[in-house]
């Protein structure tokens, strides 16, 4: 009975909560981004090696972090749905995927733009770049697979399996610079060591990362609301909602 409750109550309960939270996340995202950009362009010092070009870091690194993190969150939701058969989980995973793909694309794009001045080329087939590209394809594959299966329950479960399968790629992205010595830079922010970069740079990056994170919440929640409405269009509460609106 509890699982039944779980299964049927969740989307309905989540819908209004998400609706209330979205503006907050959106505003937070905006504020944090403005602060981050301010730090990035007006406070952080010019790099003595790379000049101004290094400021791409404030887009690149947060985007890369969030792209990986969102994948883990998406796979987590998907796995939850597979294990517990909760309906909201699959919708959450679907809602996160496009944002994740967007940040992955942003990381690739900003990295490529950064590569030109620093490495002299937009693209090299190095391990981190490759595995990040694989991440993009995993997001796209996840969305394509879900789109190809018309029955939403089956689509959720099939998508969940693929998402879980792809989780292996995330540690590969993260540790690839340690496992293979490549062009790309290693981690300079670590929990165990003192940060090797300037405090202002770290601050800017963190601000931007949080902004991206809040933005992800806002977009994922608004997307999940649309998905809930579509999937539950025949449910009583949606009809009431529509009647009220």
């Amino acid at each position, binding site marked *: 009975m509890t699982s039944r409750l779980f299964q049927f109550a969740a989307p309905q309960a989540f819908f209004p909560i998400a609706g209330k939270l979205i503006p907050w996340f959106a505003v937070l995202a905006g504020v944090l981004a403005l602060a981050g950009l301010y730090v990035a362009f007006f406070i952080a010092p010019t790099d003595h090696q790379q000049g101004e070009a290094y400021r791409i870091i404030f887009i690149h690194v947060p985007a890369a972090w969030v792209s990986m993190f969102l994948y883990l969150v998406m796979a987590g939701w998907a796995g939850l749905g*597979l294990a517990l058969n909760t309906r909201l989980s699959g919708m959450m995973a679907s809602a996160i995927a496009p944002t994740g793909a967007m940040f992955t694309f942003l990381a690739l794009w900003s990295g490529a733009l950064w590569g030109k001045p620093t490495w002299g080329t937009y693209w090299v*087939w190095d*391990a981190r770049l*490759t*595995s990040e*590209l*694989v991440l993009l*394809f*995993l997001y*796209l*594959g996840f969305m*394509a*697979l879900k789109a*190809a*299966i018309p029955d939403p*329950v*089956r689509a959720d*479960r*099939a998508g969940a*399996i*693929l998402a*879980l*399968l*792809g989780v*292996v790629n995330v540690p*590969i992205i993260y540790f690839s610079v340690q*496992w293979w010595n490549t062009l790309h830079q290693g981690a300079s922010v670590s929990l165990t060591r003192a940060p090797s970069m300037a405090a202002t740079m770290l601050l800017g990056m963190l601000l931007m990362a949080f902004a991206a994170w809040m933005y992800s919440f806002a977009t994922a929640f608004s997307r999940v609301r649309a998905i809930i409405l579509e999937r539950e269009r025949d449910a009583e509460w949606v009809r009431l909602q529509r009647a009220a609106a």
Partner: protein
Amino acid sequence: MHSFVSVLRRELQIALRRKGDALNVLVFFIVVASLFPFGVGPEANQLRAMAAGVAWIAALLAAVLSLPRLFAADHADGTLEQMLVAPQPLALVVLAKITGHWLLTGLPLALAAPLIGLQYGLPADALGLLIVSLLIGTPVLSFLGAAGAALTLGVRGGGALLALLILPLFVPVLVFGAGAVTAGLTGINPSAHLSLLGAILAVSSLIGPWAACAALRVALD
């Protein structure tokens, strides 16, 4: 175990009946590998540098071509349904099908690789490396490919979707497989590449069959 043996036996039996299906994969492999010089131009040095990559890409495409059929026929004629309701653990059945796939595509390709190596003028030790890398790497294609095939089962237009799902996953295999040979050619110790390939094999042998089983249950719900 006995269900593993009986499924595997049946796979091989059916392949034999289809008169030379395994042979087809081989010939396909050779034809694709022979196509490259046409597209790229026949300079000997360039060819030698490309040999491993070409052999590996051919192996990869042969896998992609054969994978849509891995479960489709059993799905269409109801055999898969029977496998799901049978007392046997589904994982054993899937493992048997994966083994059959590798014996019929991966293994022949690994054994035929010397042909391509010779065609492209690869020296003997690089040839050996090529075979070893194919022997370690092609099972990965079968393991991950089985998961992809199960995920796209019953999804019409599955062939192209399957390719889309698994080709990106095959990339690391290709990189390290071809990388090992190139390393050998340029005098670098290839063992790092090969051990990475081994690690990928270990991981995929665990997650591939798991994902395939789960996906099959979903497909037949």
